[in-house]
């Protein structure tokens, strides 16, 4: 049975409908992320779960109980905010103990719990410090500890790492995930950073325009994007126009050449489709006899640190090719003729709308460590 259930949720602010008909089940103990750009409704959805916004229609169930008239106070959910929201007039210990004191915990047991929390977040010795004396990352840890101290049923995190530097962000997200695993706590996480969502979640809900475009595990979302939006939002993608030559055999016609995708194709022969390729699935030399080969000319070479990205002009389109930086190999030069090789499994096919060509979307892979 679902631990947290959202049923046909809708939310409008005035005339604008921000969340449209959203249904979702969150399992107990899972780490679920809402991923999407700004304005997609992810934060609003989280705030509805927390009780800070009232749904225009639809219901929210937590552990089978309808939350319709339940105030945020009584929902037993913890919340971590983007700007930490630590109480400036209380020190670290006071902040962490806040929920405990509200619940009536007496001095000694509260102190013990605070010490436990400080150990969990690795900040023993900081008990007497005030929020203004802490860095952003430290404040967010304290905010996490404060929310967890009262042992909530689930933890809601609203873009908790957006305000932090890149390096701190990486460390902290791994810490959040390990704490979650350690405590077996259900966590609902909102972010616009796809790398964040993919790296720490059990499941990801990609949102756009108030709706969930796809819900699945990170690898599902990445390898089998259900819609064009998900395909272009997650990772980078190159798209080529192709025509189905033989649906049963999985043959495609691209720029006069026959390519092989995984058979059978869920399309009819002669249909025009959009062929999408992930940059990392293309190599410059065939690795097996099955591989498809397309000719191309190198347009640009981008050195991104651990990854080298080539922009190759092929079949009238720009195609991205990513490979690990190998010091033994020489990088191709612009203008060089190369071969693009990829297996049938790398071909992602989607109906193509002739009027709308999906351009090659380059999303920077966050190689800045």
């Amino acid at each position: 049975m679902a631990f947290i259930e959202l049923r046909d949720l809708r939310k409008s602010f005035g005339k604008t409908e921000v969340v449209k008909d959203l249904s979702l089940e969150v399992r107990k103990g899972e780490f679920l992320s809402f991923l999407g750009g700004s304005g997609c409704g992810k934060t609003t959805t989280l705030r509805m779960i927390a009780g800070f916004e009232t749904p225009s229609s639809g219901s929210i169930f937590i552990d089978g109980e309808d939350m319709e008239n339940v105030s945020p106070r009584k929902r037993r959910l913890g919340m971590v905010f983007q700007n930490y929201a630590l109480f400036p007039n209380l020190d670290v210990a006071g902040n962490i103990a806040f929920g405990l004191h509200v619940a009536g915990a007496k001095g000694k047991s509260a102190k013990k719990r605070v010490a436990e929390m400080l150990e969990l977040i690795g900040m023993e010795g900081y008990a007497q410090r005030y929020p203004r004396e802490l860095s952003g990352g430290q404040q967010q840890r304290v905010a996490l500890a404060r929310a967890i101290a009262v042992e909530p049923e689930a933890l809601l995190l609203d873009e908790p790492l957006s305000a932090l530097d890149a390096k701190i962000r990486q460390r902290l997200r791994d810490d959040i995930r390990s704490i979650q695993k350690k405590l077996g706590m259900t966590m609902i996480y909102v972010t616009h950073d796809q790398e964040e969502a993919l790296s720490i979640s059990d499941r990801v809900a990609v949102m756009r325009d108030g709706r969930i475009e796809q819900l699945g595990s990170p690898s599902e979302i990445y390898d089998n994007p259900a819609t064009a939006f998900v395909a272009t939002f997650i990772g980078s993608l190159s798209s080529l126009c192709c025509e189905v030559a033989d649906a049963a055999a999985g043959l495609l016609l691209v720029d006069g050449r026959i390519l092989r995708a995984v058979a059978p194709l869920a399309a009819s022969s002669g249909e025009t489709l959009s062929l999408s390729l992930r940059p990392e699935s293309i190599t410059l030399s065939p690795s097996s006899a099955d591989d498809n080969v397309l000719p191309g000319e190198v347009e640009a070479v981008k050195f991104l640190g651990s990854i080298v990205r080539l922009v190759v002009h092929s079949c009238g389109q720009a195609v991205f090719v990513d490979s690990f930086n190998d010091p033994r190999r020489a990088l191709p030069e612009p203008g060089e003729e190369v071969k693009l090789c990829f297996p049938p499994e790398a071909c992602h096919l989607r109906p193509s709308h002739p009027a709308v060509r999906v351009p090659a979307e380059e999303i920077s892979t966050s190689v800045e460590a």
Partner: protein
Amino acid sequence: MPRSQALRKAGSWLGLGPFLCFAIAFMILPALSILAGSFMNKSGAFTFANFAHLARQNIVASYRVTIELSAVTAAIGTVLGALVSYAVVAGGLPKGLRSFTITFSGVASNFAGVPLAFAFIATLGRVGLVTALAKSLFGIDLYGSGFNLYSFWGLSLTYVYFQMPLMILTIEPAIVGLRREWREASESLGASSWTYWLRVGLPILTPSLLAAFILLFGNAFGAYATAYALTGGMLNLVPILIGAQIRGDVLHDPNLGYALALGMVVIMLAAIFLYSSLQKLASRWQR
């Protein structure tokens, strides 16, 4: 080259020249002359006598009344102003009300002195509207039961008319700075509204509230026009007393007036100092 740099620096300060000359001529110099005058007697000799006179009973009483008046109107203004300011900024009311209230507060805090006195006479004077309504609608005889507009409490009520809007304007930034997330975090941790205010909201606002209180105190302490227009000098307030020394009262003693004025300046200086310190404290917390 340090020399030309030093010359340029000096030149920069020259740019302030005209204004500084004006400020010195018409603000600093008069203030200093008052300071000097308070240490002199009528023939110009140095003396502490004026300060000794400050210990006179009617003068001490005057300071006491003025301090009481300032404290009372500052307290009422602080509480009411804070509540109204909170109501329009963070109380969930339609947004238009906030800008209207702020604008109106800007106007109302200017509406002091003679026009304000008249307004309150028309409202709570012997034949004022509220006085008459109280009698006809509720059968309450205000003046019969001891109320008098031309008294301490009448003047206090009048002062609150400009104290409250000043408070609304002054505390607004602090209330804006009271982040919504603090309240939400508190709620998510199970705290009620009361608990939130008691343990988070009020502690955070306290420095700003105190600072504003002191501002209002100083505002009332130095006020002359309203008291003069309403009570005509009946109420023994320090500003009125000072005015009387200048304008040739029966016991006209300008040197005493200087001492009184100096006393007032010292109190205002203390107020400003406390106000600035509290504001600095408040801004430290608000990061």
